């Protein structure tokens, strides 16, 4: 019998950490501490669920996109998100958990998804703001995760980052076009930024000191940069992008700090952050109910596939 304190386990763990420290990638069949595996399942599945739930606020505008070009681009983008969800579910499955279990955890609330998708997409400008800010924040995080220690996750991130930068550009282009348009269009764009700016900053999670999983994740190199570092990077890049097209970020404390070489910014409303995470965001219940309903509506289709496959095998073995 072994447990965490047995010399054997300790040696394995030391060897494991040495590989991490040497920047080697951990692969599915390699030995890994159970806590590393659990932590990865939590993080990658949360990421996968975010891609999937994110299809709802964006899909909300596919049928109403204002030009055929915008419609085609949005469809392509949502299709990419769906593909990202698929690779990430596959990466999670390499850790010994099934898709069905992952979906069950999403439905029961045991698994989380990015809290930003609990905000509604109310106007066309929200599609611009989501692409520009939400995908922009996601990219900052994902670029960093390209160097994460788990091989399948790191490789998934490389692929995902390529597509995400196109997503951010399309979002920014929507905002730019609105800002060059009528007074109503500019107001629509500004309103979207007012609503999405702070929730985008919340996407990076709590301050480093308060982040439950951060320290261990950094040692294992699951995470490569801290929440606050990544958030700062996002703020710095967004301020300039907003200025170029004439949008105002809704933070009176936002100003350049010469000494730090970064923008200072105001404090996030952590009450709102906690409220939304714990279920009281504008759309939490709607998002899960939608996913549950689609899954339940599709049950007979999944059963039909299974029955068809079984019958095919039966016929094949009879014929043989």
């Amino acid at each position, binding site marked *: 019998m072994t447990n965490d304190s047995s010399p054997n386990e300790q040696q394995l763990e030391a060897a494991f950490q040495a590989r991490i420290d040497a920047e080697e990638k951990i692969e599915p069949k390699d030995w890994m501490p159970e806590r590393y595996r659990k932590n990865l399942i939590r993080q990658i599945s949360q990421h996968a669920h975010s891609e*999937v739930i994110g299809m709802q606020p964006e899909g909300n505008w596919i049928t109403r996109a204002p030009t055929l070009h915008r419609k085609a681009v949005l469809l392509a983008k949502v299709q990419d998100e769906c593909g990202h969800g698929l690779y990430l579910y596959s990466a999670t499955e390499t850790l010994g958990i099934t898709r069905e279990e992952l979906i069950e955890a999403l439905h029961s609330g045991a698994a989380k998804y990015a809290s930003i998708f609990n905000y509604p997409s109310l106007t066309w400008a929200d599609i611009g703001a989501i692409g520009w800010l939400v995908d922009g924040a996601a990219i900052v995080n994902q670029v960093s995760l390209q160097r994460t220690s788990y091989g399948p996750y790191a490789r998934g991130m490389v692929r995902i980052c390529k597509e995400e930068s196109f997503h951010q550009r399309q979002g920014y282009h929507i905002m730019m076009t*609105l800002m060059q*348009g009528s007074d109503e269009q500019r107001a629509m764009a500004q309103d979207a930024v007012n609503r999405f700016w702070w929730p985008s900053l919340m996407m990076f999670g709590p301050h480093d000191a308060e982040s439950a999983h951060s320290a261990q994740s950094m040692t294992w190199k699951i995470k490569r940069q801290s929440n606050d570092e990544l958030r700062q990077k996002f703020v710095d890049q967004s301020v300039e992008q907003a200025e170029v097209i004439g949008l105002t970020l809704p933070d009176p404390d936002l100003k350049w700090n010469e000494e730090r070489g970064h923008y200072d910014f105001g404090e996030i409303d952590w009450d709102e952050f906690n409220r939304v995470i714990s279920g009281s965001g504008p759309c939490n219940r709607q998002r899960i109910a939608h996913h549950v309903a689609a899954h339940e509506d*599709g049950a007979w289709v999944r059963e039909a*596939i299974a029955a068809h496959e079984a019958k095919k095998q039966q016929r094949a073995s009879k014929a043989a």
Partner: protein
Amino acid sequence: MTTDLTRATADYAVRLGDDALILGHRLSEWCSNGPFLEEDLALTNVALDYIGRARMFLGYGAQLIGGDCTEDTLAYQRDCREFTNLLINELPRGDFAFTMARQYLLDEHALLFLEALQGSSDAELAAIATKAIKETRYHLRRSREWMLRLGDGTEESRRRLQQALEDIWGYLPELFAMDELERELLAAGIAVDREALEAPWRRAVSATFAETDVTLPADGWRVDGGRTGYHTEHLGHLLSELQFVQRAYPGCQW
């Protein structure tokens, strides 16, 4: 081309564009509603192909119409009576069996139609057909496989598929109907002879369903009207959604 023939070709391109746009819209409604994630991906992918096809046909129609007509003025600024898509394309998406049965029946038709359109004397229409047919071959492989799965799977899947076929059947004759415009363009070597597609279509469809436990409905009821703008009540609701932004904020760039 004579002015009359140009105008007729424009109308033809627009009706083919309307077919693609309206079916693409219905398919896009599946986004985040599929029975599993792979199917969400596939359905949005097919939707995107149809929106792309709509842009090619409507763009060409707009070019022939001239003036300030564009793919977007055609898609966003016409009302129900001016849309000329076939009725089958505008029917609500229904359940997965309905969507896939419609798709399969249309894919078999599209394959034959596009093969013929590749021979059009209108180089632009022929080029669009050549691009679209590659997508259609893939769509058909998928939708045909779904007929076999659902038609063989469980009692429920067979019942749902059978019901879908019953509900769709009377909208199919419109796929093979020629009107004056298409006859004139057929004589000019531009349009496809739809009547000629019916026999090979029936052979293909019968062969597929012969591998399943569902039976093809008997011919009987039929509803026509799409080409003359005499639509089902569903189209107006679809358009009110499709056109909402441009109607609420007219004259803007997006």
